[in-house]
């Protein structure tokens, strides 16, 4: 065994000395030739798809990966082109990006910031990825976004709903298409006021981490502005699986509405508990007791089963939308995989296309050129109507869907119905909004690395 070392050392001694002279030019070219990190030089370009493949959000991660594979197929000219035909920008030709074939590497974020960063770093350092995208939690999104900013590559966030991603933790190299807590609150409040009146007493159960805090804050602010009163807001541990002890005090508090700021498994369990306690059959203050779930997803609705019937919430996109873009995407996704895509799949697919389009329009993979092309970019035909990538915080502004659990679902995918499409003006806020980190939050400057 030690012989191997010795031969390597021997190889080094002779090889390094002899080879140094030959290799000297490449030492300098290797670093100084490229204008930015991982400039693609060959006939292909590598994108990094960093999604949770294990852990609590593995289902969403799997759907995101499907969407990315579909996007790569479409970018390279395969399949039926999906949303490329409905996208308002026609820069994409179906011949890859800037004529380079799109290749990709995948990684597992495990929904842990550390693992996600390790995975993203290996994509950047080892595989030469020029853009990182994906993820299904805000903690991961913030961590990976900061990494991409440091390394000088573009980050296109996947599913991340916390205000912080484009709020106090916004970065020049990071972009988010998904909506956020503030938008959920602003879209939901008027619908709730219309359906349940303006003199409700709300009780919040909030998952005890960043996303929970920002969502609670957003929903509280928007509903209180319309006359609701917040009786109490109780934090629940993220790892909680039985919420009975949290549900029991709700009725004693005199509240007539329960807001569940929970996501994923948390929401499935808390909603199930609340319904089992018979909250929805109760009468408080002369009004029917109501439950609200600010952020809905089809995968969650599936988990909670019949309990979601009639319960209001908001979502970024739903496959039953009837605009051309959504129809085209649902069709090509359905043809390839046999079932409709989730909102996570949609946002990831759109992000991949938006990035490719920005590169085409900029005519370069240079992150700073891409940032410039995406900032203030207005587009349509991607399923959410007219959308703006705001330059101030790199957040997409578009209509928000208010949905309700369907009373009589036709299939296991048809669980939500769209109640209202809240127009974009109603969910737009100032870039220095206090919920978004105030005046202190800045993007900084774009970093091309190298």
């Amino acid at each position, binding site marked *: 065994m*030690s012989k191997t*070392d010795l031969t390597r050392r021997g190889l*080094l001694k002779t090889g390094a000395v002899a080879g140094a002279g030959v290799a000297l030019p*490449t030492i300098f070219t290797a670093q100084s030739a490229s204008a930015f990190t991982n400039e693609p030089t060959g006939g292909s370009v590598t994108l990094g798809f960093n999604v949770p493949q294990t852990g609590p959000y593995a289902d969403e991660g799997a759907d995101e990966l499907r969407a990315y594979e579909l996007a790569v197929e479409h970018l390279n000219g395969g399949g039926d082109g999906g949303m490329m035909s409905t996208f308002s920008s026609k820069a994409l030709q179906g011949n890859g990006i800037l004529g380079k074939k799109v290749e990709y590497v995948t990684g597992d974020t495990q929904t842990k910031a550390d693992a996600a960063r390790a995975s993203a770093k290996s994509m950047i350092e080892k595989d030469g990825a020029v853009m990182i995208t994906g993820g299904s939690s805000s903690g991961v999104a913030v*961590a990976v976004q900061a990494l991409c900013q440091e390394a000088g590559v573009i980050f296109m966030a996947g599913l991340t709903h916390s205000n912080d991603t484009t709020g106090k933790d916004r970065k020049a190299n990071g972009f988010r298409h998904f909506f956020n807590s503030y938008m959920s609150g602003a879209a939901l409040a008027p619908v709730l006021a219309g359906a349940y009146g303006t003199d409700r007493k709300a009780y919040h159960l909030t998952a005890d981490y960043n996303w929970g*805090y920002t969502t609670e804050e957003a929903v509280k602010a928007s509903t209180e502005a319309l006359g609701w009163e917040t009786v109490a807001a109780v934090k629940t*541990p993220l790892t909680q699986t039985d919420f009975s002890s949290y549900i029991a005090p709700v009725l004693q508090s005199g509240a007539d509405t329960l807001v569940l700021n929970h996501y994923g498994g948390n929401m499935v369990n808390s909603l199930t508990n609340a319904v089992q306690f018979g909250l929805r059959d109760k009468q408080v203050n002369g009004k029917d007791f109501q439950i609200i779930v600010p952020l809905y997803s089809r995968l969650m609705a599936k988990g909670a089963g019949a309990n979601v019937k009639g319960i209001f919430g908001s979502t970024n996109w739903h496959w039953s939308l009837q605009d051309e873009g959504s129809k085209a995407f649902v069709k090509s996704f359905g043809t390839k995989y046999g079932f409709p895509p989730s909102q996570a799949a949609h946002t990831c697919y759109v992000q991949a296309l938006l990035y490719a389009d920005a590169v085409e329009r900029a005519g370069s993979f240079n992150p700073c050129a891409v940032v410039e092309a995406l900032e203030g970019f207005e587009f349509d035909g991607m399923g959410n109507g007219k959308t703006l990538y705001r330059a101030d915080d790199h957040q997409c502004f578009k209509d928000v869907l208010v949905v309700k659990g369907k009373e009589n679902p036709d299939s296991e995918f048809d669980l939500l119905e769209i109640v209202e499409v809240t127009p974009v003006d109603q969910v737009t806020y100032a870039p220095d909004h206090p919920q978004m980190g105030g005046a202190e939050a800045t993007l900084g400057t774009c970093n091309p690395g190298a």
Partner: protein
Amino acid sequence: MLGLDKKDFRLLVIVVALTMLAPFLLNPFPESSGLAQFNAGYPDLMQRFVIFGIFAIGFNILFGLTGYLSFGHAAFLGVGSYAAIWMMKLVTLNVIPAIIMGVIFAGIFALAVGYISLRRSGIYFSILTLAFAQMSYALAYSVLTPITGGETGLQIKATDRPILSNLEPGEIGRANLFGMDMRTSFELGLGDWLFTFNSGYYIAAVFMILAFYLSIRIFRSPFGTMLRAVKSNQTRMYYTGLNARPYTLAAFVISGMYAGLAGGLLVAMDTQAGPERMFWTASGEVVLMTILGGVGTLIGPVLGAGAIKYMENILSKINKDILHQWFAILPDGIENFLVTIVYPFVGKGWHLTLGIIFMAVVIFLPGGLVEGGQRIARLFGRKKAKGDAEEATQSTPAE
């Protein structure tokens, strides 16, 4: 030399050589070949190898010598990380003070946890440490959000202005060692091979060599002998009039400080700290590393750490697409069949592979990878008919 006997010194020299030449050793395959997938010689992973090597070496001082199985060691890693990142956010971007702070805070925390937990031994001790670690995790995740940043964790931001730094307005601070950026890399292209020499890696490697040297000294010292006595029969120690508590507590604190060093280094290499670093699975991982490599051996934990980090970062990235490329020359039916067979063991299934290897090691090689190396060495030793088994034993390759 250096207060070591000949055998230990040779082991140290080998570890030094392996860490210094790691950029070569870990990148054996040419860039353009399909096997480049298995190259591990990029800065982030090399850094992780040595940092988790330090973590496992420290854990082994407690578990390998005293037999006390701590199930909460990740808490010290986390405390070290938080201390280091606050040092960088507030005082200076130089990594040395940050790392020292990480070690000190982890040491203090270990003293408190150890003082309480070491009142019990065996499974009760394990459960106590586990409880402390989970408590720290839960606190960091929610209640202590103002200090720890909650789920999002802490990073250096554009608004951070450390006292001892002269950053331009809006510039985001970067970890450095007296001005040398941790991410500076020097790339050496030799034909189709590309070797990356990263400054951060070499700094971490120097720390690992120091940590390894210290661990040899502890193993060979009277103090180490005392710790082994605790492992073999603590009751007998008490009967002979020796109080074992100070020794076990010292071992616990030392190993906590090793974890703090690892945590500080993690922050120095990648300026970010989050609570999942303290989760119980992270504590379990270091136990796996140590057992996989060989409990109570000097180099075992380092090998175990390397093996697990390699699988986590390399195996987990092999997706269906890559498998199809590998088997592309075969007829379609066989190709798909092989992909179906192999796929569950790579990509997101890397845990499964790790589990199988772990079981195999525990069943067939109770002494871990080191025992595997010894057996191979004995095999070759007989063939050569020379009793040179020891030398080969020590030089088990890193990966």
